[in-house]
């Protein structure tokens, strides 16, 4: 028996180490993907130039490296904010997807299921009527509108489901789908009517990062990153919620309050993502599932790793969007599905044993 317990403790250590190793690998691959992405685009910038310009901005290192101003501007003012934006939106949507799946105990839930994104999108479209594009904090206003729209939708979904059927799961989904389509069609109307200004329908309904600059990233990144960290702390709670609301309650978890809190945080993340990049489908569903296939169903792991993988995935997809038919861009939502679906089905084939969807 003593031997047995020793073996046990050893496996725990190995688990800890492998978790650390995976996190390290993820960090390294994320950084290299960011570096790679800085080199691709309409203007082909050689790798050596990117490396040199990065060394140039590092503190305490002074090499006398002269790089053309033009390239430096492209790297730091155009590409870097856009890459960071893609990364945090990818991470945010994936983590929000994981959270919704956990709260609703259904692996088919995603950030757009309950109409949060559609509500936020409608609010952003309305905001584009009222907020002049060049005033101070204009993006902050748009983001506030997005929060308001998204939370209004989720609250009304919850309230209606409560009145109709006392929060039955399928009633929540059904009211969510109904409100979601309502918001989407209203968004279409508004976008069709405003032909002169602002957003193009495609860049909004299928997502795009071409508006992302430092102003936008500064408002969005803290919210999404803090939201993800917050959710990771609730990994254990999410795990226990999987065994059902009543039994979770006997384990000391305030089931109802926790569900509300987690949905709220995931919705804030989703709304920020929508305000930044429009509606990018599929990421919030496919990335969590990929992570489930490889790392199992533990929610702490799922949240951490799907954050990383979501970020990498969306950065790479954005690279392809920028380059394939340059100087024009493909809507990123179309591209995520185009790349993601075959990839996802492939992974399902090679590793589907023992995991349900």
């Amino acid at each position, binding site marked *: 028996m003593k031997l*047995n*317990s020793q073996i*046990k*403790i050893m496996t*725990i250590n190995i688990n800890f180490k492998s978790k650390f190793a995976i996190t390290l690998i993820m960090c390294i691959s994320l950084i290299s993907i960011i570096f790679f992405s800085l080199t691709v685009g309409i203007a082909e910038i050689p790798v050596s130039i990117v490396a040199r310009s990065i060394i140039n901005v590092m503190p305490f290192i002074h090499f006398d490296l002269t790089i053309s101003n033009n390239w430096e501007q492209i790297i730091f003012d155009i590409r870097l904010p856009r890459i960071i934006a893609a990364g945090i939106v990818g991470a945010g949507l994936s983590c929000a997807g994981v959270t919704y799946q956990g709260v609703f105990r259904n692996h088919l839930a995603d950030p757009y299921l309950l109409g949060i994104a559609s509500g936020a999108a409608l609010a952003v479209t309305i905001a584009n009527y009222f907020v002049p594009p060049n005033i101070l904090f204009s993006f902050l206003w748009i983001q506030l509108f997005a929060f308001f729209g998204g939370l209004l939708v989720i609250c009304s979904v919850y309230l209606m489901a409560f009145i109709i059927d006392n929060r039955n799961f399928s009633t929540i989904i059904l009211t969510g789908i109904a409100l979601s389509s309502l918001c989407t069609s209203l968004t279409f109307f508004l976008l069709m009517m405003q032909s002169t200004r602002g957003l193009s329908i495609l860049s909004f309904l299928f997502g795009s990062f071409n508006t992302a600059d430092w102003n936008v990233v500064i408002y969005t990144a803290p919210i999404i990153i803090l939201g993800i960290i917050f959710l990771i*702390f609730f990994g*254990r709670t999410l*795990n*226990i919620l*999987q*065994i*059902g609301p*009543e*039994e979770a*309650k*006997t*384990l*000391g*978890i*305030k089931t109802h309050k926790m569900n509300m809190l987690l949905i709220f945080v995931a919705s804030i993340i989703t709304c920020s993502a929508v305000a930044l990049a429009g509606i990018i489908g599929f990421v919030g569903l496919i990335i969590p599932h990929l992570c*489930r296939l490889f790392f*199992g*169903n*533990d929610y702490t792991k799922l949240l951490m790793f799907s954050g990383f993988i979501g970020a990498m995935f969306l950065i790479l997809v954005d690279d392809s969007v920028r380059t394939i038919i340059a100087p024009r861009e493909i809507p990123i939502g179309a591209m995520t599905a185009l790349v993601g679906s075959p990839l996802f089905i492939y992974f399902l084939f090679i590793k589907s044993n*023992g*995991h*349900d969807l």
Partner: protein
Amino acid sequence: MNFKTSLAIQNLTLYKNKIKILDDISLELKEGNLISIIGPTGAGKTSLLRTILQFEKINDGSIRIFQKDMKKLKLNELAKNISFVHQSSFLPVGLLVNKYVLFGRNPHLGFFDTESKIDYKIVEQALKKVDSLQFIDRELTTLSGGEQRLIIIARAIAQQTPIMVLDEPAANLDFALSAKIMNILKNIAVKERKTVLIATHDVNNAIRFSDYMCLLKHGRIIKQGTPSEVMNNENIMDLYGASAQITKDIDGNTIVSTKYN
């Protein structure tokens, strides 16, 4: 026997949709005892357990845990005092047995705590008590129904509560395994001075392993006492509406069987 009272239910009344489910129930549970609630289906056994776990709002009466009013306990405090095994638990796919049993440690962990070696040790001990240590690294859903039931009981044991409540812990299992489960529960009650409260349909096992029995019908307790006090033809006729034949086997265990003409 000078065991302390752990759970005291007084004049408990419960309505659901204006229908009286539980009617003026008074019951005292003692430490170190295995208490079974028996009764026909619809008698209110599950409702009584659910009320004790605060899933239902009490209309009248009170429940006290170690002299403290239950309503004043926080949820986490409650989870440190009572553990619960559901009639049919939902088990997530892909979850490992030791992770599942570890859930039982949740009430003892703070928000920022992670499970320590001590918690893993407790998980091992709990699995040992239900004789399932060999399943520790298996996926829960790959086990058979009976094995799963043992693991769920191990989760409740790992919670280390003075009171354990189990809703039909041995239902739908073969007769050897149901006796084994009852024996495990009896051992826990006696050796660790815990209060184990179960609802069951299995009258014979209830008689054999319980210290105290409670006969529930139409939401009322019609009799309560030690098995030898309450198990007679008259009470069984009252409870189930069927005449029974009470015999003893060679070891002296009481056997109840139905009698039809």
